[in-house]
């Protein structure tokens, strides 16, 4: 028991920080680039904008291809790439690289469906004012899709926390690594249980905040 506490005292803060680093970096990259890709998919498939099946098919194919990789394999395949980008692949930064690569196509599909859910009539009304695409994006697509995007962000972050445990096992650190290193390999069941409890609490809090925000941005 006392050993469990010692291990947690020495490692938990560091591990939490590493997980936070990985999830935040890959989350931001995933949401920003994913939104852009989702917007590309939406723009080139909506008859009210610029339907171009070719662009849509190519982008869609790439997204599907990356998403077909089981994350464990994607992570290993991306080790050389992580090395190139982050220097050392076995750091939280290195881990964030493969997490980002997984997050972008994941969020792209979420963003695409969030935009596609918007009532086509509202887009038609916006088009008929003579507004250009950027104005329509900032004043129509974005506010109308926001609640759905927020729910998608929550989904992405929670998935990323899960995946971050996997990159932890190949040396990128984080709370998942703590559980494996001490809890599993050194039979410190107390550490394992503590990590699980912490994760459950974190996920609950994120989901709760996300739901509140989504409701807040659904007006009326």
């Amino acid at each position, binding site marked *: 028991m006392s050993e469990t506490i010692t291990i947690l005292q020495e490692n938990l803060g560091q591990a939490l920080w590493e997980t936070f680093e990985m999830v935040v970096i890959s989350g931001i990259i995933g949401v920003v680039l994913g939104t852009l890709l989702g917007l590309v998919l939406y723009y080139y498939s909506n008859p009210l904008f610029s339907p171009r099946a070719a662009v849509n098919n190519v982008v869609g194919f790439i997204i599907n291809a990356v998403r077909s990789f089981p994350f464990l394999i994607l992570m290993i395949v991306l080790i050389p790439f992580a090395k190139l980008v982050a220097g050392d692949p076995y750091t939280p930064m290195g881990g964030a690289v493969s997490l980002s690569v997984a997050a972008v196509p994941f969020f792209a599909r979420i963003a695409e469906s969030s935009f596609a859910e918007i009532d086509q009539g509202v887009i038609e*009304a916006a088009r008929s004012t003579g507004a250009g695409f950027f104005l329509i994006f900032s004043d129509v697509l974005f506010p*109308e899709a926001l609640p759905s995007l927020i729910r998608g962000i929550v989904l992405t972050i929670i998935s990323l926390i899960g995946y971050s445990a996997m990159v932890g096992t190949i040396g990128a650190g984080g709370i998942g690594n703590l559980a494996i290193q001490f809890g599993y390999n050194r039979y410190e069941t107390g550490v394992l249980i503590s990590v699980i409890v912490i994760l459950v609490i974190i996920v609950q809090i994120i989901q709760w905040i996300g739901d509140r925000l989504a409701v807040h941005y659904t007006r*009326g």
Partner: protein
Amino acid sequence: MSQIELKNVSVTFEQKRTTINAVKDVSLSIEKGEIFGIVGLSGAGKSTLVRTINGLQQPTTGEVTVSGVEINKANKSQLAQARKKIGFIFQNFNLINNRTIAQNIGFALTAGGYPEKQQPEKIDQLLALVGLQDRKANYPAQLSGGQKQRVGIARALANDPDILLCDEATSALDLETAEEIITILKDINERLHITIVFITHQLEVAKNLFDRVAVMENGELVEQTTAYKLFADPQSDMAKRLVNRFLDDELPDEVRFKLRKSNGRFLSLKYHGDDSLDPVITEIAGTAGVDISILQGRIEFIQSNAIGTLGIFITGEPQAINQAVRLFHEKVDGVEEDEQ
């Protein structure tokens, strides 16, 4: 040149297995300042046709010219420019749900290049025009259907358009609210001299609003006439169907069945203007020596002219009945005989 000119406009949708001819070779001219109606059943191609006017739908063949600009050949910026001067009102209002009423109108103003700083004042003016000044900070979900459509009108008027296109603008509203919207549109037309093109499948809208009207059926324009003439003297089968349903001069089947058993003939009389039928009926009844019973009657005012329909049943000697029918044909504008 008319303000809106459509020349041989056709719109064809190619789908994988089928080709849909939504609009077939439609030509029409709409003059500045008039209220032009397009009526027809749903699926007749009305919505597609009206969308060619602001380029939301490009015609497959034919030409669309609005205020001298060829919409079907316009590039992106010309089209955006033209759209600023063409307001559009929708059946389902199509407001941005997560933006306030003021922001919804502000969006259209920004799209039209209206300076940001002067927008609040303009938004107030527009909302005053439709009587919703106090709902600026509300979101669409907090408004009733009629109020949402008023916001739709205010938004459509944001950039001082020359033309207002209305796609079933009253069809999602109850009759009373629809009347309110129509009154607002009529008022806008009179005060601001904005041309209004109004599509509907509800003929009761036509009687108060339209100057001229076109009837569409299966993508084709089957009749083009004035609102009064449409009701008084419809020519095409589609127009007759629509008008008869509206004036409801068909007898209920139960009554028809009863009449079939008795000896006599049913006539449907239609009269225009203010002529009263009563002296004619008593006169003919006297001259021919028949009995005339009145089964149903109705008077409608279309563009402040009366149109009356009267369903009568004539009984008596066969000879006398024939004479009475002949007299009615002579003295009444429209006589239709029911074959029973």
